[in-house]
């Protein structure tokens, strides 16, 4: 799976400070660490980028490009910041992250993908919010992709984001997201897919988030997920993605297939993955204590 490193995020206090003070150290350190860890892209999440959007984005892109050869994922809802970022990201073909089915996004973001010849993330969000089920997600994405095609953006450049909700908030939609990813290849031949992986564990106590993220990555990977914005500084996540933990992957697959695996035959780590897969498939009700059962 193509991994987009999520660590350079304006919500992070260190990153926020560094951007404010134009201090390249923290930013470049994160870029280098993620590159060394095995990221395929570096995400630059600027949030709404209200202050000096053009200058800030340009500075960030250049600061990061100075220390890594990886392509960048320019991640903002501000189209002015987006354009500045894409303009500056000259080293490798960047990823526009993201556009959506919202009217303002169709009007301001999508044209940028064409203008700067980028790959582009298109999420299923519309002006009505996040669609609540597979049918409404399908309806939304078909419409937005058709519009993108009309603008001259081919399916091959489009990365569909189904929008992952936290398992602690909507377990059913988490369990169903795989079905949506699995039908994408038939719905829109050639499109790729991506998700904000860590969102699945939003709201879960910090020390328990990793295993939710990792298990979900394996599950959605099996259903055909092409990429994920993820915590690439988690070595276990990288090991799983590189196929270095085949037994764990096998246990997750078996759990997805409904096989009952006697927990007593497994190590603690293996048990935890099985329990987590059961929660993420919706077989057992989620609670923060799901590993204690």
């Amino acid at each position, binding site marked *: 799976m193509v991994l987009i490193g999520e660590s350079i995020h304006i919500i992070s206090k260190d990153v926020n400070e560094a951007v404010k003070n134009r201090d390249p150290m923290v930013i470049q350190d994160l870029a280098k660490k993620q590159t060394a860890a095995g990221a395929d892209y570096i995400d630059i999440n600027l949030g709404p980028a209200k202050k000096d959007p053009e200058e800030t984005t340009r500075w960030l892109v250049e600061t990061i490009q100075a220390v890594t050869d990886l392509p960048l994922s320019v991640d903002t809802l501000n189209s002015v910041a987006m354009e500045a970022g894409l303009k500056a990201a000259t080293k490798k073909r960047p990823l526009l992250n993201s556009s959506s089915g919202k009217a303002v996004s169709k009007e301001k973001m999508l044209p940028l993908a064409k203008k700067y010849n980028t790959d582009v993330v298109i999420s299923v969000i519309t002006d009505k919010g996040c669609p609540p089920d597979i049918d409404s997600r399908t309806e939304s994405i078909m419409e937005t992709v058709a519009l993108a095609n009309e603008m001259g953006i081919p399916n091959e450049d489009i990365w569909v984001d189904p929008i992952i909700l936290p398992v*602690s908030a909507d377990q059913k939609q988490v369990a169903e997201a795989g079905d949506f990813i699995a039908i994408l290849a038939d719905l829109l031949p050639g499109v790729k897919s991506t998700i904000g992986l860590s969102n699945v564990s939003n709201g879960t106590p910090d020390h328990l988030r990793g295993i939710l993220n990792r298990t979900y990555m394996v599950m959605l990977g099996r259903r055909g997920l092409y990429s994920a914005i993820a915590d690439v500084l988690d070595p276990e996540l990288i090991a799983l993605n590189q196929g270095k933990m085949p037994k764990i992957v096998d246990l997750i697959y078996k759990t997805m297939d409904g096989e009952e695996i006697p927990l007593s035959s497994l190590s603690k780590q293996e048990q935890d993955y099985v329990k987590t897969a059961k929660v993420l498939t919706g077989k*057992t*009700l*989620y*609670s*923060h*204590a*799901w590993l*204690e*059962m």
Partner: protein
Amino acid sequence: MEYKAPVETYSGKVAEVVIGKSDKAIKIGGESVLPFHFFEGAIQNRPKLALELWDIDPAGWAEWVREPYKDVLADPVAWAKKALDYGADSICLRLMSTDPAGNNASADKAAATVKKVVDSVKAPVIIYGCGDEAKDVEVLTQVAAACSGEKLLIGPVVKENFEPISKAAIDHGHSIIAQTPIDINLEKELNVKLLKTVPPDRIVIDPLSSALGYGMEYSFTIMERTKHIGIMFGDNTMQMPVIADLGNENWKTKQAKVSKEQGILWESVAAVSLLLAGANLAVVRHPDSCKYMKEVIEGKL
């Protein structure tokens, strides 16, 4: 060909909790079918009803809830007897005197009151603390010790204080009420933590019962899901009986205070709804609500 209606069978069974010792005992839970699905299988223990009383004169209660108890409101023992005369299966004594924001009565005093009530009535007793997390630990552990062996149902235990209260309750032979704020995931989390030291037949789930018109449907959904998850999907952390402690919230509404008739209907509609959602034990305030629910449960309405 003769038509035979399909009948579902389920993998899960709700634990049976006994409240009250020897001849006082009632049983709640124990079912392996959904609420009121008599066509799916036997329901040995039909839902039970408790009437609520306080250990202080409840000055703020609507006059039509005070009226049936007007001579006994300052005397919990007499009040408890009267409630049982009205036909309740059990009584639910709320220790409002202990509220730090009110009278702040001592744990000793509250425990002595509980003991007196328990010794005077021939019915099982449910005890609710005032709801202050810290004070409830003091009060409910003392109550548990003072009434050792009486098989009370004691609560609420919440995420912040479940350890000391559940330990005292279990050590002295009681059962506990596990309370969470109308959230299925938090409900399960508390159950998982409790089940490490407390057997399932000593736990009753209180998902909080909101008033009709003030979110009752949320409580309904949570109780319904609790039953689905426990009985249909066999999740053994969700197979405990459910208590609907609904009088308190319903009688706070301005609608219940408009008239006697409307107040009783307000409480009764909430009660019948939550019984249908799966409550195994309902706590109401007005004797007429109790009477109507009894008729519903016995199939007369």
